[in-house]
């Protein structure tokens, strides 16, 4: 039982990060039906921002994170403005290919600017105290990660259900043209969506690099893809779906590794995809998705 709880917490920690990144995918998809493949790279750039603020400006971690969030928001909004806005009415495939281009552009740019060699992040989770609750040993950073992620998600949920701008976002995701006709400033809502998504990715980066303290231009790729899977799993376009999908993905990954013998542990990645395929076969719109009727 102790073993199960330990692995469950490991799963929750990585799942929390997937969920935060998945939210960015899902919100953008909800609004403009674009899978923003550059989203993982927002996380990567945020990690570099935090790193440089801490090493070059000697800022404390917390302040560096706040600044990095601001910079990531600006970057996210700029990317939408420069790369995606003109393609709003083009075919979805063109926008998708542009997103891939932005992703590769950022990776290559960072590789050229800062070399592809990994850099060590100055703050590591191993320097945080280890909590011992009975049989359970738990890094306090694991706890911080889960708690911060959950708080952020609750705030986001409150924002979209209670705040006027949040509600406007939901309306735009229901029907973009209709919202436009109702006098909602769609462009502003889209920018806001990218801003929120980027901020979440920056928070995810802040939590991620302390646990996995290596920064490379390609570090966003894998969590980005995983988070995308999480978003599809939960039902892309749905905020609670991304949260559920993220945690679920983290838990499935951890639990398959924890309980399947190592000789076949290579399966763990495979099992994630098997689950994705099954979910898409049985519920094509994702776990929380409802198959929508054609709007007239």
């Amino acid at each position, binding site marked *: 039982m*102790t*073993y199960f709880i*330990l*692995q469950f917490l*490991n*799963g929750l*920690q*990585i799942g929390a990060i997937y969920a935060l990144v998945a939210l960015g995918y899902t919100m953008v998809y909800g609004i403009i039906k674009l*899978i923003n*493949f550059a989203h993982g790279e927002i996380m990567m750039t945020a990690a570099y921002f935090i790193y440089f603020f801490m090493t070059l400006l000697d800022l404390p971690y917390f302040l560096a994170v706040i600044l990095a969030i601001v910079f990531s928001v600006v970057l996210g909004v700029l990317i939408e403005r420069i790369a995606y806005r003109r393609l709003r009415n083009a075919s*979805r*495939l063109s926008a*998708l*290919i542009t997103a*891939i281009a932005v*992703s*590769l552009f950022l*990776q*290559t740019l960072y*590789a050229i600017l800062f070399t*592809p*060699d*990994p*850099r*060590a*992040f*100055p703050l*590591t*989770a*191993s*320097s*945080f105290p*280890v909590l*011992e609750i009975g049989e359970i*040993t*738990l*890094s306090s*950073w*694991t706890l911080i990660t889960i708690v911060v992620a959950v708080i952020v998600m609750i705030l986001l949920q409150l924002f979209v259900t209670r705040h006027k701008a949040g509600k406007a976002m939901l309306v735009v995701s229901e029907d973009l043209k209709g919202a436009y006709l109702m006098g909602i400033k769609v462009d502003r809502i889209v920018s806001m969506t990218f801003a929120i998504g980027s901020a979440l990715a920056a928070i995810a980066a802040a939590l991620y690099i302390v*646990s*996995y*303290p*290596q920064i490379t*231009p*390609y*570090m966003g*790729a*894998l969590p980005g*893809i995983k988070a*995308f899977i999480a978003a599809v799993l939960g039902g892309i376009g749905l905020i609670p779906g991304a949260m559920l999908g993220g945690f679920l993905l983290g838990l499935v*990954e*951890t639990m398959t*590794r*924890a309980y399947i013998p*190592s*000789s076949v*542990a*290579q399966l763990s*990645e495979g099992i994630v995809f098997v689950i994705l395929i099954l979910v898409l076969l049985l519920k094509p719109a994702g776990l929380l998705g409802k198959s929508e009727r*054609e709007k007239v």
Partner: protein
Amino acid sequence: MRKSKSKRVFTAILLVSLAIIMLLTSCGDAAEKETETTAPVVTGDKIKIGGLAPLTGNVSIYGIAVNNGVKLAIQEVNENGGLLGKQIDYIVYDEKGETVEATNAYNRLVNDDKIVALIGDVTSEPSIAVAQRAARDNMPMITASGTSADITKQGENVFRACFIDEVQGDLMGAFVANNLELEKAAILYNVSDNYSQGLTDAFVARCEAEGIEIVASENYSSGDTDFKTQLTKIKTAGAEVLYVPNYYNDDIMIVRQAKQVGLDIPFLGGDGWDGVLSENVIGTEKNDADGAYFTNHYAPDDPNEQLQSFLTAYREAYGMEAVSFAALGYDAAHMMIQAIEEAGSTDSDAIIAAMKDIEYEGVTGSITFDDNNNPIKTVSIILVKDGEYTLFTKMQSDE
């Protein structure tokens, strides 16, 4: 209509995401197209020794280090009166880490430059290809750092200066039994890497022979960053020591995550750990790797005079610290030179015979050859202590 459209879009998205995954995995290798060759000087009274090394491309770090070591050795010999009364002319070609390039460069060395002996290649795959040619030509050849057992199996004329991968895993097994006196070991290795796999197999075999129980054998694939699940499993299995035969970027991540899950046992590794204390790997938490033992070619704090003077000379010549590959290149060159000296001529058979019986004292230890032309040499066990590599003990590779 709507349904088929959204289906098509989804297929497109899936295809594109697959394409992305493939692109992402192939990124990151920017091969520089540069060739660095020393123009052959045509003079009658020089001894020509050829070199092959990847001076550009993916594995250029290794090639440049080995080449630097070789150049330093040859420069020393030339300054001290040369070899058999002649100066050595070292001709090196960049093979970019590719088998075809290496074979072409080898042909050029033999046919155009008329070398008498070869120091190279650096990595295993091209070394095997070159060794096949060299065996046909009966060309005396020594690789500084090719660890694959197959290289020296190509012919009697092919030697190496480094220990093979299996030796490291084997010795660590003996180390656990004899020095640490522990009985329950665990392994965390990279299943997608031959080096990691080779060390693991040898370690497991030795542990079984010594009666050490492997309580957990966990693995991961290249690119993984989360090891906490495996480490939790290892902790629960009650391991007393953990073998981590991987490269330093993974090693440091594993060490740090072990602290997070409260796994506090000694870590063991191979020469892939060399570099773990570099500034850009360990960062500001300099003591995180403390308490780890790993097998290496030499220890920088080894008081051995020859090693210390090599390290100083290297620092002066290149303005940086030597790594193991440089030390191995230096030794490989000196071994070839000593063999030619002892042979008393540049005749291939004489050089090969002299090399076979060589008793060499070098910076990476004293070396003699076994039946497979693999060196029997000292292996240093390094202990990471207070953020420094320290020599813990020395073992013989056939122990």
